[in-house]
């Protein structure tokens, strides 16, 4: 009996309503083999949603899921009504454990979408996907009301609503079910005209028992030909929106994960909850045979761990081993993954099974080879488990000497040492950028070609741009398969390099939302479309899509130059800066800019005086402060992002000393993240959780390590404040002594927890020794008994005792 769960479930489709207000003749729910909808309640009961939320919350907590995705689905989910949808959203969100994000979506035919629904979705942060099969003729082929009327006007009205500035952020994209008798050019143009952020083209559901139509006049692989036509248009237009299927082929051809269950070998982590509370497997199985998705489980009697062990779900988690023999030996199997599971079914194999290639096998092969042939040639990826090739040099090369690592282990880092981290980070960003571009299928080839040319001809200009913290953040998001970011930022990086090089080079950059952002420089208000940026010896020229020309930045990036040689950018224009786990502030107004510059000046003076061992490295490596929105009730908010070296996000605190503390604290995370990019300090396979003395919840080892490293600086901050007060009375002095008593003990304890964890590597143990060397002398500094008692009280309060 299986007792372990192969993979926790993290995607949940909740059927809010089992009926639909359209009668599309290609719908898998009502028109295909499965007929279970007839016996189900029309609408899901609140009690079922509440129990499902509880199950999801338990599952997320037990498996420490950082995020779950819930799709409100149907039938037509808007038929459930706004009140029930609101209650479902609130209930689902409330049941998740701290640290688990909810990606909540609704997928609708759009017919009922109204301004009131949009307001509800904005209130509850629900992203909206809409089904639309293309132009009116294409959409009318299947997507009609029961009386034969077209649904096209209603759907266009829904999309127009989602394109209003107030709701645009809710617009997830369009799903287009293809029909080879529809004109692919007309379909593509009609969808592109609606400016969706993303589109996916779905093969109509079919099996070997019920094969797809293949009109004789359209050749042997009409579905591949249709998709390749759209792919060519999409490439020619500069990829104006994300297309999950196309991106998945480009990625899988280069060894990366697919972004859809219809392609690739990634395991399924999906469960479906029907309106009667039963759990089902993937929805698309309804197309195979009556009852195909049934699990025999329901939300009241079974946990999600029970469901994850269901053989039908486990079967879709076995990658290559779960495919038919013919698929396993195929050269494109890493890309097609055998196709959508439901499309493999045939009943005439002696019992009925999915152990077959997809009924679309020939189309998938032609399509994948066609996409591969449209860019540079790529080799067939290895089909074995991911492993670095033997003898391959790591990138970036190990750039730290033992002495530099020792400095960093003690919490510090001279200008030279932090500069070495910066060089290794630049090398890393360059390699990640190249990987992200190649994994995209080498899109925006002209922009990349110019960047590569400038890399040789004007390397300092390129490096100045690629050292920007959010250059790596872009590459990281692309490599992770985040479809919300396209290749526009790559073109923008090239444009900024061209401006800095000033050689007269020009590059096209897509503009969305009315702003053209040039990383490290600022942004320019420009109409949407393709703008051409030309770097001139005396500045730049931007020719917008409407032919208008601009030569100045409307909102330049502001840099603050401080005494002692620290120059730091206040980043409030880069759309990619939103990676610090807290909402970012909008463009700073003049008064806010003055407040920031004043606070930075004071904080920098304090750091130089009281924390010189930290200030030197900070001056060498902290290039960017990204203002964040204030936290609730004045709580200090600050954050570093592993994928954005050189930046910290901070909501400007009430006082400059607090800003100094936050800068020192967050830059510790920045330094340690850069060290971890170069060196394994702990066993990355270690799955144990560890309690940090200052937190009630256990965390993975890296969390404890990061926290301890940051609190080295916090301890020294309060230690030097305590020394400065030198026994003086007063509230501020008492607070400094209490905080010092608290943090020196916490930090020393945390170092010992790390050292005794059994999970540190040899280098990691030496790193812990370095941290101990720094914190130990602070433990010997005598403090008044009152400060120690106050620290004891604070510890008890934090521990909830």
């Amino acid at each position: 009996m299986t007792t372990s769960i192969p993979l926790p479930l993290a995607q949940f489709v909740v059927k809010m309503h089992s009926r639909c207000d359209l009668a599309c003749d290609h719908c898998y729910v009502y028109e295909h083999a499965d007929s279970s909808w007839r016996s189900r309640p029309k609408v899901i009961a609140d009690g079922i949603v509440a129990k499902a939320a509880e199950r999801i919350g338990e599952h997320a907590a037990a498996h420490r899921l950082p995020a779950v995705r819930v799709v409100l689905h149907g039938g037509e989910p808007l038929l459930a009504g706004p009140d029930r949808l609101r209650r479902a959203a609130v209930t689902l969100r409330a049941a998740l454990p701290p640290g688990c994000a909810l990606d909540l979506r609704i997928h609708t035919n759009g017919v009922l979408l109204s301004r009131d629904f949009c307001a509800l979705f904005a209130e509850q942060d629900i992203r909206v996907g809409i089904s639309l099969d293309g132009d009116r003729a294409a959409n009318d082929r299947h997507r009609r009301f029961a009386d034969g009327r077209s649904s096209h006007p209603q759907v266009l009205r829904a999309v127009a609503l989602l394109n209003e500035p107030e709701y645009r952020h809710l617009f997830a994209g369009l799903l287009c079910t293809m029909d080879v008798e529809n004109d692919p050019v007309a379909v593509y143009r009609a969808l592109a005209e609606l400016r969706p952020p993303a589109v996916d083209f779905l093969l109509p559901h079919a099996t070997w028992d019920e094969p797809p139509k293949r009109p004789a006049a359209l050749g042997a692989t009409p579905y591949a030909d249709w998709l390749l036509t759209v792919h060519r248009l999409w490439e020619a237009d500069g990829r104006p929106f994300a297309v999950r299927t196309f991106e998945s082929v480009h990625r899988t051809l280069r060894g990366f994960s697919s972004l859809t269950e219809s392609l690739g070998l990634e395991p399924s982590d999906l469960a479906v909850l029907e309106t009667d509370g039963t759990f089902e497997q993937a929805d698309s199985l309804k197309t195979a045979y009556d009852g195909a998705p049934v699990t025999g489980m329901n939300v009241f009697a079974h946990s999600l761990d029970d469901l994850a062990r269901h053989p039908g779900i486990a079967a879709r988690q076995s990658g290559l081993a779960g495919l038919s023999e013919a698929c396993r030996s195929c050269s494109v199997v890493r890309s097609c993954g055998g196709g959508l599971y439901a499309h493999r079914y045939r009943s005439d194999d002696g019992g009925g099974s999915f152990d077959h290639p997809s009924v679309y096998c020939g189309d998938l092969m032609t399509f994948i080879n066609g996409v591969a042939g449209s860019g540079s040639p790529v080799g067939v990826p290895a089909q074995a488990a991911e492993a670095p090739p033997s003898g391959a040099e790591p990138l970036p090369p190990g750039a730290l000497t033992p002495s530099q690592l020792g400095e960093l282990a003690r919490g510090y880092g001279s200008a030279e040492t932090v500069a070495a981290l910066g060089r290794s980070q630049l090398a890393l960003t360059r390699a990640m950028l190249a990987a992200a571009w190649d994994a995209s299928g080498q899109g925006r080839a002209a922009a990349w070609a110019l960047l590569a040319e400038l890399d040789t001809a004007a390397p300092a200009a390129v490096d100045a741009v690629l050292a920007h913290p959010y250059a790596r953040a872009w590459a990281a998001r692309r490599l992770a398969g985040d479809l919300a970011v396209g290749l526009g930022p790559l073109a923008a990086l090239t444009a900024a390099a061209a401006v800095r090089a000033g050689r007269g080079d020009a590059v096209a950059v897509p503009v969305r939302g009315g702003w053209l952002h040039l990383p490290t420089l600022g942004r320019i208000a420009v109409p949407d479309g393709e703008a051409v940026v030309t770097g001139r010896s005396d500045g730049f020229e931007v020719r917008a899509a409407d032919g208008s020309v601009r030569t100045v930045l409307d909102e330049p990036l502001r840099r603050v130059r401080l005494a002692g040689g620290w120059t730091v950018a206040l980043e409030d224009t880069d759309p990619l800066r939103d990676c610090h786990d807290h909402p970012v502030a909008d463009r700073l107004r003049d008064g806010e800019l003055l407040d920031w510059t004043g606070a930075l000046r004071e904080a920098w003076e304090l750091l130089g005086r009281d924390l010189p061992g930290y200030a030197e490295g900070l001056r060498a490596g902290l290039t960017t402060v990204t203002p964040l929105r204030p936290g609730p009730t004045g709580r200090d908010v600050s954050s570093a992002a592993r994928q954005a070296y050189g930046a910290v996000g901070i909501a400007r605190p009430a006082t400059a000393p607090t800003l100094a503390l936050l800068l020192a604290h967050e830059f510790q995370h920045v330094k340690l993240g850069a060290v971890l990019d170069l060196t394994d300090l702990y066993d990355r396979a270690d799955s144990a959780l560890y309690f940090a003395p200052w937190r009630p919840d256990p965390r993975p080892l890296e969390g404890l390590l990061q926290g301890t490293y940051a609190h080295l600086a916090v301890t020294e901050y309060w230690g030097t404040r305590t020394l400065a007060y030198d026994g003086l009375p007063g509230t501020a002095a008492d607070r400094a002594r209490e905080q010092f008593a608290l943090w020196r003990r916490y930090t020393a304890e945390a170092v010992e927890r790390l050292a005794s964890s059994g999970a540190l590597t040899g280098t990691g143990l030496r790193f812990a020794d370095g941290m101990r060397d720094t914190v130990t002398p602070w433990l010997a500094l005598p403090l008044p008994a009152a400060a120690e008692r106050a620290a004891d009280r604070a510890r008890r309060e934090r521990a909830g005792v």
Partner: protein
Amino acid sequence: MTPVTSTRPAGKLTDPQETPERPSLADLAALGAEELASRLQRALPGAESGLVPVAAFNSSI
């Protein structure tokens, strides 16, 4: 202390490269994404969280 709106880097644009062995972007791209990713494993997103890439539900976007 003055907020500066310079569009120029601090160093000269003709500064020599700091690391002579620095591979060009073109050379890096020629390695291909799969090869690069295998060499960058420690730093790639998700590596620190242990996240497993999974197959996204087909019937929503």
